[in-house]
């Protein structure tokens, strides 16, 4: 037996022993997702047990080194774990912007002490993070951001407003882009980390078309951000005024995540929807069936692309701008998926509050997916990047 096969066997029995049956059910509502943080509560014992088992094993962040709370798995082993978890439909033990976004940036740019300090907390789900990038005047043109941090020697005084800060009202800390040099556009931004409970920092929810409001405006009025949280633990990532490099690196990971390359956007809908329609005693319209079939072709092909992309990324074969392509294609696909699911569902999927639809899940999810091609950089911006960086088309 190869080492990898042995690892697969081992993983199977570990999952068998540690993943409770309730954690192998599809996620039904927000409460089924555990985000960690200071204010977190578990929905039930099974969620708690599964989370704790994963923390102990380093499986909340399997590919991170052990000293930072991970399991130190090789890329091949991490793939096996992912496959085995998908096989039993195991839920993600911990969802977190710390894992998906800040973590990779810290691993790449952080100091040793900084990594030990923050990464462990992220792996153990102790701190919930939010992302302070966008501002009312700076969305796609993010580098134009205006939130300003005035240098006061050992600390900054930060003033400004962020917008679209997902879950800021439930987050403990924010990773935030702050202008620290007004003269220099790209080389005047610092990537800061601070507590959202700091004096002068406040949030206000934004209600979305889906009726939900996990998004916030975040206001900063004379917020004092120290330059350091201890020996070797700066309150910023990378260098002062060079936060744009960190921001871009992080966006690459964010796009990878939103693209669903890791399995999120590869699901087909045809068979599920045809069963669904049949259960309602109805037949699938032939033209809808045809659209579903064409969609499934695209989804299965995109699934292969996701796998190829992850394989290539691991060995450095992917073009550095490839995440933009994945983000573009994956999010457009996901929007199309939900349009088709709405059509297949018919009037049932229009219900906004019924118990049958778990509180209007189909329609709310459909509306939520419209943000996929906006958040983390719009489709248009992704296409701009592909044009410039991959196809090398001339700038206007």
């Amino acid at each position: 037996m190869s080492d990898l096969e042995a690892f697969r066997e081992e993983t199977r029995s570990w999952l068998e022993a540690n993943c409770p049956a309730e954690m192998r059910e599809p996620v039904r509502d927000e409460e089924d997702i555990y985000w960690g943080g200071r204010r977190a509560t578990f929905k039930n014992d099974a969620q708690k047990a599964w989370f704790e088992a994963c923390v102990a094993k380093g499986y909340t962040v399997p590919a991170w080194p052990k000293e930072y709370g991970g399991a130190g798995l090789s890329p091949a082993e991490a793939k096996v774990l992912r496959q085995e978890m998908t096989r039993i439909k195991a839920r993600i033990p911990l969802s977190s912007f710390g894992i998906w976004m800040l973590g990779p940036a810290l691993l790449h740019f952080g100091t040793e002490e900084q990594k030990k300090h923050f990464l462990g907390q992220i792996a153990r789900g102790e701190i919930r993070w939010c992302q302070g990038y966008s501002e009312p005047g700076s969305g796609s043109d993010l580098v134009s951001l205006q939130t300003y941090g005035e240098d006061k020697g050992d600390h900054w005084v930060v003033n400004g407003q962020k917008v679209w800060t997902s879950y800021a009202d439930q987050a403990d800390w924010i990773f935030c882009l702050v202008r620290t040099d007004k003269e220099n556009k790209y080389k005047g931004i610092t990537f800061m980390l601070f507590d959202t409970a700091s004096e002068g920092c406040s949030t206000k929810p934004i209600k979305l078309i889906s009726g939900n409001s996990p998004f916030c405006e975040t206001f900063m009025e004379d917020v004092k951000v120290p330059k350091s949280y201890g020996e070797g633990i700066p309150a910023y990532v990378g260098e002062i005024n060079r936060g744009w490099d960190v921001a871009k690196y992080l966006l690459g990971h964010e796009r990878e995540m939103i693209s669903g390359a890791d399995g999120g956007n590869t699901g087909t809908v045809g068979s599920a929807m045809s069963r669904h329609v049949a259960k309602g005693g109805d037949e699938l319209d032939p033209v809808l069936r045809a659209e579903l079939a064409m969609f499934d072709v695209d989804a299965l092909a995109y699934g292969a692309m996701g796998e190829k992309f992850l394989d290539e990324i691991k060995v450095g074969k992917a073009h550095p701008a490839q995440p933009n392509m994945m983000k573009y294609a994956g999010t457009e696909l996901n929007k199309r998926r939900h349009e088709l699911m709405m059509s297949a569902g018919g009037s049932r999927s229009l219900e906004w509050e019924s118990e049958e639809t778990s509180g209007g899940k189909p329609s709310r999810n459909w509306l939520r997916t419209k943000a996929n091609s906006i958040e983390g950089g719009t489709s248009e911006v992704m296409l701009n990047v592909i044009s410039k960086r991959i196809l090398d088309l001339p700038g206007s």
Partner: protein
Amino acid sequence: MPLYHDEDQAMLADTATSFMAEQGNIKDQLRHWRDRDCPDGFGHGLWKQMAEMGFTGMLVGEDDGGLGMGHVEAGIVLEEIGRNLTPSPFLTSSVLAATALKHGSNDLKGRYLPGLIEGDSVFAVAIDETPKHRPSRITTRAEKSGNGFKLSGSKSFVIQGASADMLVVAARTSGSDEDDDGITLFAVPKDAANMSHDSVRLVDSSMATHTKFDGVELDGDAVIGEVDGGREVLNAMLTAGRIGAAAEGVGVASGAMDITVDYLKQRKQFGKLIGEFQALQHRASHLYSEVEIARAAVIKAQQLLDGGSEKAELMSSVAKAKVAKTAGLAVKEGVQMHGGIGMTDEYDIGLYMKRDRALQEFLGDAYFHANRVAEMSGY
């Protein structure tokens, strides 16, 4: 297995890329033979050179004198064939017929494989009987006659049928027209009596035939595989062929995209390079995404087939359908973004459009395969 080429495959890709660009390019092959109204539609000289490169017998087992390679490797050659629009019997002979012959007797292999490997022989496959690909319906009949069979019926869209030294023919030996069982595959030699070819040149300058069998007498040893059990061989041949056609289609799509993107960087209008216009940039970038995704579907299908996975069947249809849509997009956008000169014979983009159209139809178009995906998924 990771979804990219390993070292040996990458080396093969380098070799195939330069070989096809130098020997198989549009000017020296497609245009050359087309402008001479070549009745074969391809050059035997190049076929011989492909044999010298070891391409012709890639899918033939080592025991039978071939290289015993897989569909990933064959796909590497096919992608370059697609990119250069190289007319050649590779897909029909080295992929389809070679796959069928894997199931043949030693006698059949001995008779046909050396000629294939040497680049001296060309094979064709005769499956469809109507203008659309309908392999479920086979009405051409082979009746028992003495020790052998008597073949009657007709086939259409037989690529290179008139040039072929042997045709793999799917015929019905029992049952009714729509039955799955009762199919037998035959290796019909070029000089068989009572076989006639009605040759037609297709839109992409390739040659195909409507072939009639009017009581063609065949020996019992012309049977490939089992009598009445040919559906399995036919399916294996179709899966290999579809994945192969998809690989070639990715080459067509990439080739069309590349010349178009190059054109966007050269052509000036309104005092600017047209590649500076965002309206065109976004379409080019969208096309790029689709081509990458199609390529991923193809390599996935190839690997599944090489690994003997049950999922190869589903993925072969995904790949064929995805590529058909993608290459179709590439050539349409290509002609449009070339503007008026895209309509001229002098520029190559139109040749890509024609080749794509023929390739889309071969072994099932996007509609056929999307329908198959639905059926295999249970709806």
